[in-house]
């Protein structure tokens, strides 16, 4: 093998190794990245004091972001709980109001619509849960999931509510079921 071919092969191999390292790092959670940075700042791995400090500062910055993410998850939990409590209270009041003797029929119908609109809490709750799980995952927190869910998740069957304009409408679903 000629010297040009040899050096080209070495360059390709080095390039592949570099990219596979980047890919490995891309799958790390923030918690793992903090560990990697702290370890790589140790004198046995890094002789340059300036680089050691830079890595430790970066690790501390990442740790601070992780702490903020954990706090955000708690905030989202609070939002979800408060909205569930308020929705339950509205549901109960609407249900009770419907049963009052002599309530005009129009008012009963309105109460029924209020009950239906309360389903917003289910959809927003699922969206918030999705965000919470994302934050928890990148912060490196363990998320317990059953094998059944993992299998369906892998097939892309558990995405939660679709964004506006995405996903099938009820009439699309009806057509699809009829065609099958």
């Amino acid at each position, binding site marked *: 093998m000629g010297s040009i071919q040899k050096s080209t092969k070495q360059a390709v191999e080095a390039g592949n190794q570099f990219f596979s390292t980047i890919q490995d790092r891309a799958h790390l959670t923030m918690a793992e990245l903090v560990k990697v940075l702290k370890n790589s700042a140790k004198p046995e791995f890094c002789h340059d004091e300036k680089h050691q400090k830079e890595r430790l500062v970066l690790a501390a910055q990442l740790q601070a972001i992780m702490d903020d993410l954990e706090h955000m998850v708690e905030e989202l939990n609070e939002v979800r709980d408060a909205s*569930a409590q308020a*929705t*339950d209270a509205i*549901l109960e009041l609407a*249900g009770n109001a419907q049963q009052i003797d002599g309530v005009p029929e129009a008012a009963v119908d309105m109460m*029924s619509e209020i*009950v*239906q609109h*309360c*389903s*917003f*809490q*289910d*959809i927003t*709750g*699922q969206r918030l849960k999705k965000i919470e799980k994302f934050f928890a995952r990148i912060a490196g927190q363990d998320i317990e*999931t*059953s094998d*059944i*869910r993992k299998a*369906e998740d892998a*097939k*892309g*069957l*558990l*995405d*939660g*509510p*679709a964004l506006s304009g995405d*996903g*099938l*409408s*009820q009439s699309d*679903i009806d057509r*699809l*079921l009829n065609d*099958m």
Partner: protein
Amino acid sequence: MSVLVVDDYATMVKIIKTLLQQLGFNNVDAANSGPQALELIGKKEYGLIISDWNMEPMTGLELLKKLRAEEKTSKTPFIMVTAESKTENVIEAKKAGVSNYIVKPFNANVLKEKLTAVLGPF
């Protein structure tokens, strides 16, 4: 007729129960998970099961598959009420034997329409 509503969101269970009662279904039980639903179904016969899909630890799809595998519940009407609205979801549910599919959010008219399609006029 006894109806079983399965959903891990207590609020959603209340909404569906309320709507069912308004439609004249007064015998409605609720389960907050697949395993709890199976326990109730083991003790009582239901004429209709309305279930969410996205639940822990057992999903609504898994619950449907388990019910279809049992002779006692192989033909029990099962309506999936879920926010999952991809083509793959509907196809998987149909393959598993779902009787009808309602996408959230829905209104009382959609629920009534699907109940009529599954049970006949009531």
